[in-house]
């Protein structure tokens, strides 16, 4: 991207995406936002450290995990407008890398997190460069089919122990302590992923992705290396999904193909992003939070089918009637026209 000639005004001064284009009000809103954000982290951390209800802690951990995945997805899916239905694939590849590497090298699964991200990232490069050279629906189909292909492959390979799955070495801690450990890992991950997405939204990289979404031909003419930008965003999502998969595998210490490459993971991410609103970094945070809380709640009361029904219906309703998601509604009510 260093070769582009286009000069974009410094992000700090321009009313970027995720901000209100009202002079004066901008700074106030930003402060309120930061205060809410910090308060949220503080409350969650206090909750994690003190709560006695392990079930609630487990739910919170899952919700935070989806916040990480959804923030990562939203860079390409939201800013770039390219639908990636393959988060489950990278998640699963990360989980299996953790299991195989840690079992062979005799190290704790959590220590393989970098390797997991790297393997998922390499896969994304191999898949992304050819398929992102093309436009539109093609990429979505590739990610969908590859998820199925890799799931099938993992179910028959010897190194992955086929459909029987693999065991990992659990951390030697009390159930409570280990649950807290994973809660704080995912809390940290969620904060990091959110801040990263926010930073990217204000960077030239983020602007390039938005330009691609709005008009890819125009973006190309303006000198944006579209394939490279899209692939980078895809690889970023994959690396994060791979690392999340690693932590997930370590937490569960048993993985098998159907659950680990479950297409529902990709679905949950997409639903969270669309419900929250993909045009800003706040959206995935809100969307993944609300949809996952809802789905986890339904999961404890029913057998999960109703959860999928509700999530599917939410996706239909938001994509059809509320394209800006929750964030879009809030912004419109605040008197600012949603343009991005």
């Amino acid at each position, binding site marked *: 991207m260093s070769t582009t000639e286009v000069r974009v005004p410094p992000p700090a001064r321009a009313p970027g995406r995720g901000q209100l284009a009202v002079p004066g009000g901008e700074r106030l809103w930003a402060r309120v936002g930061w205060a809410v954000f910090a308060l949220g982290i503080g409350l969650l951390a206090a909750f994690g450290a003190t709560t006695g209800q392990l079930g609630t802690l487990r739910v919170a951990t899952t919700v935070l995990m989806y916040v990480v995945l959804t923030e990562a997805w939203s860079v390409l899916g939201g800013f770039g407008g390219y639908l990636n239905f393959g988060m489950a694939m990278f998640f699963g590849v990360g989980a299996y890398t953790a299991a195989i590497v840690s079992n062979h090298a005799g190290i704790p699964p959590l220590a393989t997190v970098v390797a997991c991200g790297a393997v998922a990232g390499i896969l994304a490069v191999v898949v992304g460069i050819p398929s992102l050279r093309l436009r539109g629906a093609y990429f979505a189909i590739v990610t969908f089919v590859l998820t199925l292909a890799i799931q099938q492959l993992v179910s028959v390979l010897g190194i992955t122990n086929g459909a029987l799955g693999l065991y990992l070495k659990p951390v030697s801690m009390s159930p409570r302590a280990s649950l807290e450990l994973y809660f704080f890992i995912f809390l940290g991950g969620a904060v990091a992923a959110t801040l990263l997405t926010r930073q990217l939204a204000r960077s030239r990289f983020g602007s390039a992705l938005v330009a691609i979404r709005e008009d890819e031909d125009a973006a190309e003419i303006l000198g944006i290396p579209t394939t490279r930008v899209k692939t980078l965003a895809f690889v970023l999502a994959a690396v994060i999904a791979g690392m999340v998969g690693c932590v997930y595998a370590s937490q569960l210490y048993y993985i098998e193909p159907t659950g680990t490459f479950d297409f529902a993971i990709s679905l949950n991410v997409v639903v969270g992003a669309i419900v929250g609103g993909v045009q800003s970094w706040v959206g995935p945070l809100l969307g993944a939070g609300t949809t996952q809380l809802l789905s986890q709640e339904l999961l404890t009361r029913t057998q999960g089918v109703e959860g999928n029904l509700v999530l*599917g219906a939410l996706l239909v309703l938001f994509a059809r009637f509320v394209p800006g998601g929750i964030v879009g509604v809030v912004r419109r009510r605040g008197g600012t026209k949603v343009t991005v």
Partner: protein
Amino acid sequence: MTTVLQVVITGVLLGLIYTLIGAGLTIVLGVLRIVNLSQGILVVIGSFLAFDLFVRWGIDPILSVLILIPVFFVVGALAELLFVRVPARDSSSRAMLVLFGLMMVGEAVATLAWTTDSRSIAVGYANGSIAFSGIVVPEDYLIMAGVAIAVLGLTELLLYRTMLGKALRAVGQNRQAAEVLGIDSAWMATVVFGLGTALAGAAGAALGVLFPFSTQLDSQWLAYSFIVVLIGGLGGVRSSLVGGLALGVGQAVFSQVLPLDIVPVVLYGILAAALIVRGGGIGLARVRRI
């Protein structure tokens, strides 16, 4: 030699039915540039409805096809009017998101209605077979392939021998120009969506006779319809026939020479490789007709 012929014949018959699934996808994609992600679950629902019609009222799946086609047409047309039309105006990925949601809803509703149990339709001709000079052809394959040929033939006639078909193809080629010529492209979108859905329903009834089915089969049928479109390209019935027959024969051959649990891996693997290496089954195919 007879084994080879046997495998090829089975593959061709199966391929004709796969063509039905692919044709539904390719027609919608060709005219509207939208990938109908709910195609797979529609096929599954078609199988279940054919099952219910058979078990409750003893209606033969061949007749069910005739019932399912108009029912699915109306459902598809309504879905287009209510859910797809507005997002499609914005972008095709928003339309795909809606269809993705409809797929989830369909899957959940189907699971609530029919549970996750596997079923099969035990028609009288399910176990029969016709033998000539050493080649044994299963009767149900033969009958359902016949049904597929009839449905595909009628679709081809509709697309190439009627004014409606001409209008549909015109919208696929150039929407603005078609509108200038007085074609109501919004109405054509509704029709084409209904048509694609109807083909999925018909395919569901046919596949329900041949294979046991359950509600989880939707992603497999969706993937198969992708394969048909990617091999055959866009362009209505004839190009789906290329993709469908290739898939059917390929699957029959692989099932003969490879262990059974490897077959899906090989099929998806070939598809994935084709997607990545050839880089644009759909993209390249777009240059062709429709």
